[in-house]
């Protein structure tokens, strides 16, 4: 009787040991949904094929919930995540709180990244060690229908007032086509839609001394210009997010988009989905009193500081940002690369004819204010911008109130 029991005990111990040993080689990845999610899913699939013994779990979340998941994991020291995908604007908070591992210390990530994306992945910005590797080189572009502008003898807009004039002209002459669109939903989308206009008017959210700076004539002029676009946009633009803008452009229902991310452009020239093949041009956003202010929106990969599988996590990140995989991501999902050399790659330029303009915008891209409280500042501004957009408050009042609340948030 004793022998079988002993054998069973040994077998159980071995099985538990084997499972534990296997469990150690695992990877939990928290990443975005939508086009970013597709890119990450492809990479996980490819990495899994190359490393069949690694147990990989990928969480796919929209931007807001992803931030919450990563921040909660770090604050609770849950050690539940290994690789985290982050918006460049979360980086100051994550790096300041030591939530990300120093990738240089872990072994480094090779590659020459586009300068602006490379800078925000380091702490201090541009000069410090690397805490993240840029995965998607997004920069806010301006999109317009070249065929429609040519048809009505219009030149591409060089200023935001010209955008409004062109939008009005096309709206009057082209039934079923709205002049211009943008993301009007509150929070991050409306703020990122507004920032290129604010920058073009020389306005700032936070000044160089770290004080709220929205209560200014430049910001007011920018907001009034932004609101002037509303009657030229499709009805319901207040609820529009990325999907709505992208689809409206693909279906030929808008002539221009004040903000168009290259990550949305992957299918613009795909005849099976798009009605405007070859007709949409992506360029740097217009200027106004200042030159264009294209906004950086890089998505990066980092290793959670408390990751129990940091070496494996770094290996995965190196895999994703390698030249062959960056090219594959661009070709298969339309997400723009972060390695500078790929913007001259003939295959990619053939598929994405706007890459030279995009690289130029990316090299001149303006990063959002590098402050740890950005998440809160963005939420405050996003709420007041939308209240102005839907007519709940006047522009001057919206900016003054946002400025007061932002100042209070910065002081907390």
């Amino acid at each position, binding site marked *: 009787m004793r022998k079988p029991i002993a054998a069973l005990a040994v077998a159980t111990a071995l099985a538990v040991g084997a499972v534990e040993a296997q469990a150690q080689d695992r990877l939990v990845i928290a990443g975005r949904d939508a086009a970013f999610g597709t890119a990450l899913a492809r990479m996980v699939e490819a990495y899994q094929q190359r490393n069949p013994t690694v147990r990989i779990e990928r969480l796919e979340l929209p931007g*807001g919930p992803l*931030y*919450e998941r990563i*921040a*909660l994991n770090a*604050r609770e020291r849950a050690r539940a995540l290994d690789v985290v995908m982050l918006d460049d604007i979360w980086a100051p908070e994550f790096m300041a709180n030591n939530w990300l591992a120093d990738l240089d210390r872990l072994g480094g990530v090779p590659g020459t990244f586009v300068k602006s994306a490379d800078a925000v992945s380091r702490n201090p910005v541009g000069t410090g060690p690397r805490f993240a590797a840029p995965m998607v080189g997004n920069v806010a572009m301006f999109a317009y229908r070249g065929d429609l502008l040519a048809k009505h003898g219009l030149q591409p807009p060089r200023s935001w007032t010209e955008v409004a004039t062109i939008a009005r002209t096309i709206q009057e002459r082209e039934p079923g086509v709205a002049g211009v669109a943008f993301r009007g*939903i*509150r*929070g991050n989308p409306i703020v990122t839609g507004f920032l290129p206009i604010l920058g073009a008017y020389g306005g700032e959210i936070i000044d160089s001394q770290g004080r709220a700076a929205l209560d200014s004539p430049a910001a007011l002029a920018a907001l009034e210009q932004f609101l002037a676009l509303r009657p030229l946009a*499709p*009805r*319901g633009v*207040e*609820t529009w997010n990325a999907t709505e803008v992208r689809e409206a452009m693909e279906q030929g229902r808008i002539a221009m988009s004040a903000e168009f991310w290259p990550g949305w452009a992957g299918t613009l020239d795909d005849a099976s989905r798009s009605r405007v093949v070859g007709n949409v041009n992506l360029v740097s956003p217009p200027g106004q009193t200042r030159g264009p202010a294209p906004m950086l929106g890089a998505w990066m990969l980092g290793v959670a500081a408390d990751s129990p599988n940091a070496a494996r996590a770094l290996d995965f990140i190196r895999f994703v940002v390698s030249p062959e995989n960056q090219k594959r991501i661009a070709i298969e999902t339309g997400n723009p690369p972060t390695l500078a050399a790929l913007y001259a790659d003939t295959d990619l330029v053939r598929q994405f004819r706007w890459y030279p303009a995009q690289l130029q915008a990316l090299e001149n891209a303006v990063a959002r204010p590098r402050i740890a409280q950005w*998440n*809160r500042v963005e*939420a405050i501004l996003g*709420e007041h911008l*939308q*209240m102005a*957009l*839907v*007519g*709940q*408050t006047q522009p001057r009042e919206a900016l003054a*109130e946002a400025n007061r*609340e932002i100042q*209070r*948030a910065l002081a*907390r």
Partner: protein
Amino acid sequence: MRAQNRPWLLLVLLAPAAALFVLLTMYPLARVFLLSFAASDHGFEGARFVGLENYAELLQGRSFRRAAWNTAFFALVATVAEVLVGLGLALLLDRAFAFRRALTLVVLAPYVLSTIVVAAIWRAWFHYDVGFLNNALRAVGLDGVPWLFDPNIALLSIALADVWQNAPFCFLILYAGLRSIPPELYEAARIDGAGAWRRFRDITVPLLTPYLFVAALMRTLDSFKLFDKVYAMTGGGPGNATETLSMHVHRLAFRFFDIGLASAAAVAMILVAGTLGAAYAVQLLRSEAR
């Protein structure tokens, strides 16, 4: 021997439930209450006592005041509508007619759906360009309604979805109440010459009042916690037209990690919900005493 005669046995029997109550209800409540007087971004670790500062900031902040107003408005409108619709359905389905059972199942269907599914359905129906509701309006020559992006309509639109989902709950309670009224009362009233309205006013309403009260109170408490429908349908917008207290607390706690301010807002919510709950308990005790 009865347990009441042996206090130690009572204590032993009550201990597990009491321990769970203290651990899962009292401890978190006490913690939230204490944190509401602190500046903290992560529990008590690194927390700083700030007295009533969080409460003062809440009251000064337009977002909180708007969220409180939205919550109260929604709770009132949704509850009244749900109880009235539930009452109408109960009166209708209390009568004998063909396909009554099938109709009862149809009426109850929305109540068994998950809230996120309900929100997805109504978000699609409310779509300005291709939604079912605006298509129906355009089919009869009317203009489409900006259901979710007009700040004056958005909260009412969410209330409409809530009524669709939760009126069946009121129906269930009120239907049970109707079935408990002895039919002899109606027969006697009919013999005495009372018409339908008189029978409804003098028999149905008085005898159904406790059920109406329970339905209204339970729906008020539930509406007061509104979060998921708003989160899925409007995200609190347009502007802050649909932001509720639950969403406000969530944003403060999990987006801003301002745990002190979030705790103060939560305490304010608990006070209101507690008052409503106490009213419910008092009414329950009174009716039991009767």
